[in-house]
């Protein structure tokens, strides 16, 4: 199963992730 997030955010939004990274519920994904 997969979850796709699609969202609008200011251009200053930055993902704090790496492709292939393991992640858990509630961990930071990004910030403006």
């Amino acid at each position, binding site marked *: 199963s997969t979850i796709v997030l699609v969202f609008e*955010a200011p251009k200053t939004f930055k993902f704090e992730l790496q492709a292939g990274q393991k992640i858990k519920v509630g961990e930071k994904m990004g910030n403006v």
Partner: protein
Amino acid sequence: LANAWNNTPTKWYPLPVGIGALLLAVIQFRKRKDIEEDDLSEMHPRVKLQGGWQVHVLGALPLRNLSRLWGYLNSLELPIWLRPTGFRVYAWFFGCNLDEIEHEDLTHYKSLGAFFYRKLKDGVRPIATADLVSPADGTVLHFGVIENHQVEQVKGLTYSLDALLGSSSIQESHNVEFGERDPDLAAVDDHEFANVNGIEYSLDRLIGQEKGQRAVSLSRPPASDSGSSDEEDNTPLTPFDASFPPSGSSTDDQASVALQMGTSSVRRMPQRVTAGVKKENELYFAVIYLAPGDYHRFHSPAPWVVEKRRHFAGELFSVSPFMAKRLANLFVLNERVALLGRWKYGFFGMVPVGATNVGSIKINFDKTLRTNLRRRPLPAGSYTEARYTAASPVLGGQPLRPGQEMGGFELG
């Protein structure tokens, strides 16, 4: 065998007329069905299966039936003596952390399905202070900025955002459950729904047919003036409203076949759900893959309001990274539930996508949602829609806080 093959005389005789007539009827029926589907495809451009031979072999399998069979088998109650060992073997094989599950006594889980949909202990998933947090345990497959309404599945392989979310329709609707009926729309109601001997149908459809338009949709009859949408509604769906945009309208976006729950609708023109993105903003996406051993409930990734959901019935291919690299349009082929709403920066959408082993998507605040049903799915690209206005009339939808459990994926 050789003797029979060589010496048995071939004798030809005519088939009974009834069989011939039946054959002609079947051919005619299939031809009409194909024509209807072609007409629907004009409104719902088909997302074609594209990929290597492995993809086409998988596409030929009855994946939805296999998924339901898988779900049924895994719902069977296991003997108590087998549960701890069986679940420990499963956990070892798929890498589940048994220290964090809610019930340490594994005999509590009656089936593999129940174990798969396990809850976690309170506090084992602290919620970070950030604008966006992870909605699930899993692996980040891909993320980035959406350009030209194309979402990148993997490097160099894209799919349409409109196909993923469905295009919006300018449709005026009201929820009769609030008891506030817009007089203008009430007038539309009278035209939309007529009731003859308890059978409801759409006048719009009648007019559309007279104009040579086609119409197919599923909807519930308008709800009573009382009651709450929070209550489970188990009334069967009735095919009754069907309206396509007037001929000559734009087909750039797919039009919806919308399930209006307790609402009525007027003529709609397709429009992108993300049409209102501000100039100073951009659209972003992120894809998280949940492996079989992962915790399979999902949570709210931000403070937001879910205004509506769109259920796209579709195929149930595996969504593993292996398939994501090989099957184009994977996420718009598969069955999914698009939860659409807004957050402080504008549009926000979350789309749980089903897979062969997990075709059942549950939404905690939507008891009417049923996925992976046996009945024939709607044409490709179409969806059923429900609005959550009743959850909070002030906010216009279901409000969620970061980390709040929203639902999950169940086996089958």
